[in-house]
């Protein structure tokens, strides 16, 4: 594969309820990413978006996001009904052709208008699971319970993950939930859906993220410290939660192997552990030891703009390299319930 680099990225704050429409808060994010990359909007050879009609409660919601891109004169453009991380994947594939040298990927979503417990059951098998009203928190609770029963995790570890995420998020201006918290106090809180307490859940967020990528020559020409994509892969698992061992993430392991996570030491990992118990599970699937700094941004427990949160992991991993001096970082994105579909991206400095 050709070397492709991330040369710019930007995010919106994560809001509980944005006062702006999706295209409105997306526009400055895309403009910011382009400005940081030091390129002209017109030089982008390909654009790919990730968003979800069901979050907006409107068919063709993604069409209005074109306003934020500035699609006049016409542009070469595509859209995935997936997290922006997969939009980045499609754009990365497009750049492999070598006939264009710059691409934009972005993800955006407003979760605030809807009720996740009503929307996400529609993501499940419509004949056998949707009618049960299987919502994300209940499914995540089943997964956490399976891990607790197996003895691979404790509720204290879950609370420690939540506390560490919030503490790390204090340094992240885009985060929604941050600040110090006492693990014992967290554990005294009542269960929301046992064994999950409120701190084990992500916030409901609105937000956007954009990333600019370039081919090798272009990246070196326009960027002082490009962040190289050394490997990227994604894998899905069977849909029925009962057909999977929920205490491990086989597809993350497969994607990590194909992306080359274990080829060299990893310093930082940005993991899309949307529920506290998933962080340990993902660490194990990716073979990340205690020396790896996980979610220095605070991760999804601090900011969870669905459809942008996976791409934000890639942007945050790139930030760890370009702004904080890390040499090698791993980013992870997920789709579906109980980590059904996972993407892993390995990033390195120059």
């Amino acid at each position, binding site marked *: *594969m*050709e070397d492709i680099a991330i040369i710019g990225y930007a995010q919106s704050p994560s809001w509980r309820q944005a006062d702006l429409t999706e295209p409105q808060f997306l526009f400055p994010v895309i403009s910011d990413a382009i400005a940081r990359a030091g390129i002209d909007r017109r030089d982008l050879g390909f654009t790919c978006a990730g968003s*979800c*009609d*069901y979050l907006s*409660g*409107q*068919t*063709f919601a*993604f*069409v209005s996001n*074109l*306003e934020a891109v500035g*699609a*006049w*004169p*016409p*542009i*070469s*453009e*595509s*859209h*995935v*009904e*997936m997290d922006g991380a*997969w939009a980045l*994947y*499609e754009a990365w*594939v*497009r750049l*492999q*052709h*070598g*006939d264009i040298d710059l691409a934009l990927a972005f993800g955006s979503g407003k979760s605030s208008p809807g009720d996740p417990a009503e*929307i*996400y059951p*529609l*993501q*499940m*098998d*419509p*004949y056998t699971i*949707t009618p049960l009203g299987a919502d994300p928190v209940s499914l995540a609770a089943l997964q956490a319970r399976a891990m607790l029963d197996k003895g691979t995790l404790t509720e204290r570890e879950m609370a420690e993950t939540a506390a560490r995420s919030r503490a790390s998020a204090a340094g992240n201006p885009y985060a929604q939930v941050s600040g110090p918290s006492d693990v014992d106090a967290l554990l005294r809180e009542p269960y929301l859906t046992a064994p999950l307490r409120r701190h084990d859940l992500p916030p409901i967020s609105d937000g956007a993220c954009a990333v600019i990528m370039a081919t090798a020559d272009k990246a070196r020409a326009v960027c002082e410290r490009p962040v190289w994509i050394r490997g990227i*892969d*994604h*894998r*899905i*698992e*069977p*849909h*029925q939660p009962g*057909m999977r061992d929920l205490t491990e993430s*086989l*597809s993350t392991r*497969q994607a990590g192997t194909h992306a080359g996570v274990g080829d060299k030491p990893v310093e930082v990992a940005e993991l899309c552990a949307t529920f506290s118990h998933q962080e340990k599970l993902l660490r194990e699937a990716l073979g990340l030891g205690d020396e790896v700094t996980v979610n220095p941004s605070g991760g999804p427990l601090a900011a969870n703009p669905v459809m942008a949160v996976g791409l934000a992991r890639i942007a945050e991993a790139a930030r760890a390299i370009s702004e904080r001096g890390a040499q090698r970082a791993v980013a992870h994105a997920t*789709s*579906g*319930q109980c980590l*059904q*579909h996972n993407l892993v991206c390995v990033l390195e400095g120059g």
Partner: protein
Amino acid sequence: MSRPAAIVGIGQTKHKKRRDDVSLPGLVREAAQRALDDAELTWTDIDAAVLGKAPDPLEGVMMPELSMADALGAAGKPIMRVHTAGSVGGSTALVATHLVQTGVHDRVLTVAYEKQAEGNAQWGLAGGRSGGMGAGGIFAPWMRSYMARSGAPEHIGWMVAVKDRRNAAKNPYAHLQMPDLTIDDVKESPMLWDPIHWHESCPSSDGACAMVVTTEGGAARAPHPPAWVLASAMRSELGTFPGRDPVRPQAGVECAHMVYEAAGITDPRRQVDIAELYVPFSWYEPMWLEGHDIAGAGEGWRMVESGETQIDGSFPVNPSGGVLSSNPIGASGMLRFAEAAQQVRGRAGEHQVPDAKVGLGQAYGGAAQYFAMWVVGATLDAVDQKR
């Protein structure tokens, strides 16, 4: 890196108003299994899947690649879900093609579907709001504008409708089977959105389409002739702004010129043997002939009138019967791409255009603002042979 990609397997379902005999995964598997059978491959031979469809609320299933992962044999593999409005079937095929051309994968299964009878497509196309005017309501004024601009007489639309329905009678997969439809039938059918009569509008269908994309090596091992992807492009523009020309959208013009240039086509009317264009309402045939510079300004409707776009004409358009005869929205674009490929493979059956070597597949969507196109050839030098 860019290496040749070939289509070696094509399958589609029987398209119908309501496919109550299959579930959603059953529908996509019907098309996918036929594509695999055509390629003489099995599910385990496939490296990755790319799924496309129009808005999820049309069936009420959110991000269906998740619940269809098993049915698509994708467990343990990468799967993508594309959504670019009406052009999605075309864009989905292109995303799959790019995965092969760039060397990421060697054999990719791409599938597109819509099961419109599960929901209310008219409501869905109105943005999920009540009181919508439907797709025809958006496009009708642009057709009137085309007629005023080009001087096209009213009967051109009726001719397209009759041609496509008669072509569909040669296509066993087509939804509408109207071999005896006449100009008078079209003209006297109820007016839906002036100038679109009932018979000038697409149906609402349940259906799916699938293709297997592979490498030169894969094509050499395939049991049937491949279709080579000679060029591809996607182009989008904003749907509304002052000064936009929705009759001849710039994104459509540019998309066409991008594929012509990449394929080495200098005179599409002469060098393309058959075109499958996304014509959900009759008037879009002459509009795209001009909008993609196949015909000059005001010449598109004359091509229709003179019979050039008939299956035995000099520039056959939609020998399969087109969107006017089958419209499972998410699959409709891929059906255009697949039918163009079947023609250059010589495997179109009764609606085969003799000696078709270069085919054009096109899909559009949104407010005529999203475009996807490909040029396929019977050989890698099929266009060169026509210089």
